[in-house]
């Protein structure tokens, strides 16, 4: 398709799943509520798939270990399952299946087997769902060798990364942000190679490295800063592991200032790796220390004012950039 359409993230992923299933009979979809009898997923992301592809799409009981186990097994049997773990916090339940099995079977078998599965999951603060339904946990998986981690910030990348993730021969964790699910944007229906960041906005004074919803916040911060004469470059990681060191380092080298931002708890979050690498690789070349912004060191609170204070905002990002520029 060369045509460009306005779709939101839900529609973009739905289309990617439809296209992938149509293109390859080995692609499967499974998870709680994914079938049309259950309304095609709690958020409708898998709508229409079971009607179109029958037994290749299966709703499951609430059994996350069995869901991931079934995906792993089916992939060893030659299929490409896309498994849904409804919300990211629930990924702790099949943690063993993901980290001890999906991520390791290729290596432990000396390359004889591989696990081409995609694990879709959703998360994000903003819906008053509290401590057990809002966490970003990408750091756990980025630290796990053998699984790739992807998190799109917009509908176009959501489509392109999903297509690439399904075609990837390794397990991919695909993180979807709930609050931006319904924001429309142009979709070009092109696959997006894993492992490549994107300069979402070019600028000269400072670099913000972000992923998922934080890219939206960073772009908003850039607008504000532009009115102050500060030119911000925004790098959207897109793939968190393995991450695109070259693009990030080139941008940070160019601007001389970097702020790394994520919604997950700041401490021991993925921003630490990126900040540490920038610090080491660009030693002596930066104009200011690398700053990190992240979620509070706390479970996500329910009460609205607390929830709103949990994750970094455009204002926080702008403040950090100002600090860097005036350092």
């Amino acid at each position: 398709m060369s045509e460009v359409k306005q779709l939101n993230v839900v529609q973009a992923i739905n289309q990617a799943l439809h296209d992938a299933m149509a293109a390859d009979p080995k692609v499967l979809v499974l998870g709680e509520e994914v079938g049309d009898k259950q309304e095609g997923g709690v958020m409708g992301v898998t709508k229409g798939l079971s009607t179109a592809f029958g037994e290749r799409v299966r709703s499951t009981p609430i059994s996350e270990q069995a869901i991931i186990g079934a995906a792993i097994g089916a992939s060893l049997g030659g299929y490409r399952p896309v498994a849904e773990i409804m919300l990211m916090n629930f990924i702790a339940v099949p943690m063993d299946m993901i980290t001890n099995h999906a991520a390791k079977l290729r290596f432990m078998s000396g390359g004889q087997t591989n696990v081409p599965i995609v694990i879709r999951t959703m998360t994000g603060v903003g819906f008053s769902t509290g401590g057990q339904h809002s966490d970003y946990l990408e750091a756990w998986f980025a630290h796990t060798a053998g699984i790739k981690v992807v998190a799109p910030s917009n509908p176009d990348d959501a489509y392109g990364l999903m297509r690439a993730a399904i075609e990837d021969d390794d397990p991919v964790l695909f993180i979807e942000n709930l609050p931006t699910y319904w924001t429309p944007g142009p979709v070009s229906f092109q696959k997006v190679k894993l492992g490549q960041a994107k300069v979402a906005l070019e600028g000269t004074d400072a670099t913000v490295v972000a992923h998922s919803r934080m890219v939206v916040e960073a772009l908003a911060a850039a607008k504000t800063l532009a009115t102050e004469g500060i030119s911000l470059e925004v790098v959207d990681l897109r793939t968190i592991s393995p991450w695109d060191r070259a693009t990030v380092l080139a941008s940070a080298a160019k601007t001389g200032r970097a702020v790394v931002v994520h919604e997950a708890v700041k401490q021991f979050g993925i921003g630490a790796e990126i900040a540490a690498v920038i610090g080491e690789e660009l030693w002596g070349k930066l104009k200011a220390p690398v700053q990190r912004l992240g979620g509070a060191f706390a479970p996500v609170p329910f009460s609205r004012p607390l929830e709103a204070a949990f994750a970094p905002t455009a204002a926080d990002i702008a403040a950090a950039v100002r600090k860097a520029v005036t350092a």
Partner: protein
Amino acid sequence: MTSNHPKPDAATLLEIYKRATLIKQNDERIIKMMKAGKLVMPYYSPRGQEIIPSAISVSLDDDDYICTIYRGIHDMLAKGFPLGEMWAELAGKVSGTCKGKGGPMHLTCPSKGMMVTTGIVGSSMPIATGLGWAAKLDGKGRVSVANFGDGAANIGAFHESLNLAALWKLPVIFVCQNNQYAEHTRFADSTLVDKLSTRAAGYGMPGVTVDGNDPDAMFGAAKIAIDRARAGEGPTLIEAVTFRFNGHLLGEAGHYMDKELYAACQAKDPMPKLRARLIAEGIASEADLAATEAGIDAEIEKAVDAAMAAPFPDIVELKRDVFAEEIA
């Protein structure tokens, strides 16, 4: 039901009705507030399941532990959860039982034995098992009740908890509230067995399936299990068959719902049925019940007003209660 199945006496039946009515009217008030936009939260209504915890909790004390789930306000209210602190919590206010930090899915009230409300399907069981272990070590005859849904019965934690509780003869009552749906999934689409209570045999534990909407059956099954647990004879699995009238999450479209099943269950709404029975059996007059209901509404009203007027927590609360020591 066998003849030596314990039956609630008139006073107990009336008490069950009172607790169930509090649940029902509180639910109606929540829905009204949400529709008016005055309360913003994910809400999993227990409407239709009122009898279950009401008929169980009349055999429990404040000292007895319960763990419940996101759909658990009925379990809490039946156990005596204070209305004022509940409403303040639902509104995210600092006067809430969890200072607004937990919200509807994590309501907690240790003084009433309401130890954990969880949003992770299946997780009430392992924790309630641990509370049962504590109860057994204490040796004071306390029991621990684990509430969970039919969907939760298919998750691994169910298996591990029931096996451990049976092996250690812990005073735990596993109450599976089978409302015939897990989110949008029909019970029969989640397992091949008709009765989840058949699984108890796999752990060497008694298991029973009862009509959870029938106060006699529910009271009896709970009483037997609680007595057994208090006597040190170990856990029981009770599958209480029921139905949820307001779907999974308030506001959902409900296209998945089996219309016939829904209509059939609506027709058997346990609340008007029990009310009519109380009057028919002369346990209470229409006027008595109307007065009770009005009293409950007034109590709820007070809680709502106080909650709405209360302040939100200060941002510093993000640093508190993460650890015992405040985060620097």
